[in-house]
């Protein structure tokens, strides 16, 4: 033992506590610097997030509003039901070409009644204001209610995408000189009709619930049917990947012996998680469509491909959450004579459940936003035109999916589709954020501590 520590003759090794020595100051400066880097990184991330959300909202929010023309249409019996017996089968012979003149006349009549001065004196001139879907809309209503023929009924019809674009600021007066679809007189008329309340903007339910429309009718295109396509795909993914993924993980984690084979499997699962999704797409094309002859463009095939893609994610997250259950719980169960399976299913699995569900939801969210594999199995294009009739058709009839529909819209030439692509992204993001939120809530609520 030594008493050197209390010997005053020994020189002091440390300076005053009141001022930092050079080394401490340097250390503190380094720490400050590191914190600054961290904050700068977070700041940059937040900035990009704000820019991204701002860009999406400013470009896409317009898709949720649409311009409508509301006019009373006289449903002329002489044109629509020549025999006058109100037989829908007979009336169905009149195509939309028979309805167009009636609607155009009705718009012109409304223009005249409102006392609007315009050089466009012919009913034909009204065509540019109306969506090509207007005639079909009126026809559908009339065929469903044949008694309407001969009466004057008020219809709220879609305006053409140019009129819509003009009211939303997408179509400028400078541009119309080069536009074959609309001219300055029509824009003047649109302004006047808007003041008269005949042309108005309203909430666009058709965009959320409707089907895709052809290239010339962007005002009619909606995401609803491809949303159903996504829904059916997600059902396939959930039903297949959750049980397969969880069973595989439980076996690998709890039962499989640790040897070269399981190591190999483990490495390959990790590799699969990193395989580009387009590879799964071409695999799906080769195996499910060309070999197994499943229908093209069907959500069933899309779901199968996405299942392949989601499985590694689910297996990895399930194994991680099984690993996180302390071994003492397994020991406890085994120690009182539970079999391995009882220990796993009674004790380990319930504790791992929140993690498994979170992983599954994240995997599903990933699958929901996946586009590339769908390109290869034919789920992109002008497909999502009709609501599938029935559940079997939902799985087997050609459909698109939300992200594929967005891609399809972004590809189309008409700038009106550009707005709809962004609007679709908003809907997709709402779905993804909701799923992630559910994952977080599940984790918070069911997480147990030990």
């Amino acid at each position, binding site marked *: 033992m030594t008493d050197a520590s209390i010997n005053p003759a020994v020189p002091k090794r440390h300076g005053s506590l009141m001022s930092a020595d050079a080394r401490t100051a340097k250390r503190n400066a380094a720490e400050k610097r590191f914190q600054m880097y961290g904050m700068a990184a977070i700041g940059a991330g937040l900035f990009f997030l704000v820019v991204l959300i701002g860009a999406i909202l400013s470009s896409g929010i317009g898709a949720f509003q649409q311009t409508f023309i509301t006019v009373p249409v006289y449903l002329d019996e002489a044109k629509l039901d020549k025999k006058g017996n109100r037989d829908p089968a007979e009336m169905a012979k009149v195509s939309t070409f028979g309805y167009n003149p009636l609607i155009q006349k009705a718009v012109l009549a409304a223009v005249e009644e409102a006392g609007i001065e315009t050089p466009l004196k012919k009913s034909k001139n009204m065509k540019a204001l109306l969506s090509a879907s207007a005639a079909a809309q009126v026809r559908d209503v009339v065929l469903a209610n044949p008694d309407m023929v001969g009466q004057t009924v008020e219809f709220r019809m879609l305006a053409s995408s140019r009129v819509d674009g003009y009211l939303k600021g997408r179509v400028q007066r400078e541009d119309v000189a080069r536009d074959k679809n609309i001219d300055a007189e029509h824009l003047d008329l649109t302004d006047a009709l808007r003041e008269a309340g005949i042309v108005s903007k309203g909430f666009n339910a058709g965009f959320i619930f409707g089907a895709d429309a052809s290239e010339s009718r962007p005002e009619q295109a909606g995401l609803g049917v491809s949303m159903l396509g996504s829904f059916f795909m997600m059902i396939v993914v959930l039903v297949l990947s959750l049980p397969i993924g969880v069973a595989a993980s439980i076996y690998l984690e709890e039962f499989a012996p640790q040897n070269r084979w399981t190591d190999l499997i483990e490495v390959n699962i990790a590799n699969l998680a990193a395989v580009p999704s387009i590879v799964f797409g071409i695999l799906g094309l080769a195996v499910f469509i060309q070999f197994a002859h499943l229908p093209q463009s069907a959500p069933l095939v899309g779901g199968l491909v996405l299942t392949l893609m989601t499985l590694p994610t689910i297996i990895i997250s399930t194994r991680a959450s099984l690993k996180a259950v*302390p071994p*003492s719980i397994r020991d*406890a169960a*085994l120690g*009182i*004579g539970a*079999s391995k399976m*009882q220990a796993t299913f009674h004790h380990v699995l319930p504790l791992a459940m929140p993690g498994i569900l979170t992983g599954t939801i994240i995997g599903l969210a990933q699958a929901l936003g996946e586009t590339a594999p769908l390109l290869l199995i034919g789920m992109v294009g002008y497909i999502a035109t009709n609501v599938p009739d029935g559940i079997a058709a939902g799985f087997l009839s050609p459909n698109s999916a939300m992200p594929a529909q967005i891609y399809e819209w972004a590809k189309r030439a008409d700038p009106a589709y550009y707005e709809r692509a962004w609007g679709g992204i908003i809907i997709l993001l709402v779905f993804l954020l909701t799923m992630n939120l559910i994952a977080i809530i599940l984790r918070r609520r069911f997480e147990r501590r030990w």
Partner: protein
Amino acid sequence: MYDAPLFTERDVTANTIKIGARGVQVFYGDTHAIRDVDVDIEDKTVTAFIGPSGCGKSTFLRTLNRMNDTIDICRVEGDIRLDGEDIYDKRVDPVQLRAKVGMVFQKPNPFPKSIYDNVAYGPRIHGLAKNKAELDEIVEKALRRGAIWDEVKDRLTAPGTGLSGGQQQRLCIARAIATEPEVLLMDEPCSALDPIATAQVEELIDELRQNYSVVIVTHSMQQAARVSQKTAFFHLGNLVEFGETAQIFTNPEDPRTESYITGRIG
């Protein structure tokens, strides 16, 4: 250092042998963890395994109910018999063995379920109760024998993980005895407990001796002296000495035993 252990005059009758181990070798991969151990565990007796860390006493304890089976690289050789039956025989299902040879672990490990469900789990999976009333009875009996009934009887539905460390360990003991084992293995049951909880558990062990054969691994030599009738001293995977506790602590035959209990090696 430590007070001279108080040896109560326990009559160590020649009990029947519950577990007999002969020439037991345990390997972890290439490591030879247990070398040629012969031990007889008597019925209605507390047997203590002592020895420095890593000497193999816990490993040997876990071979007695085949808990080592869960470790892939672990290999056991030799002959271990429970009531004359070889527990490593191919026909033996470790699940049945563990129902007979219960285990309490070093760290209290109640299931994250209610106190009631913790204790009821064993009887449920082994089908010991025909109905709810019988199960209630078994749970109450186990908790009473685990000396924790009075503390938890009003909150049987509360989570077992919400109890204090000592209570959790007694709950684990109650859980282990609810399945009516014949042998109870305890792997350092008091290492995570404070002195008061330790005293309670030790008292409990002494009571359990009436019905069970208890094997306890401990680092505390005082504890071994207090609760056990037989003591085995392990060192570097060898069983150095095995005998009456009083004799091991007062008059050890092997110099290594003496060094250990007097604190020179460890």
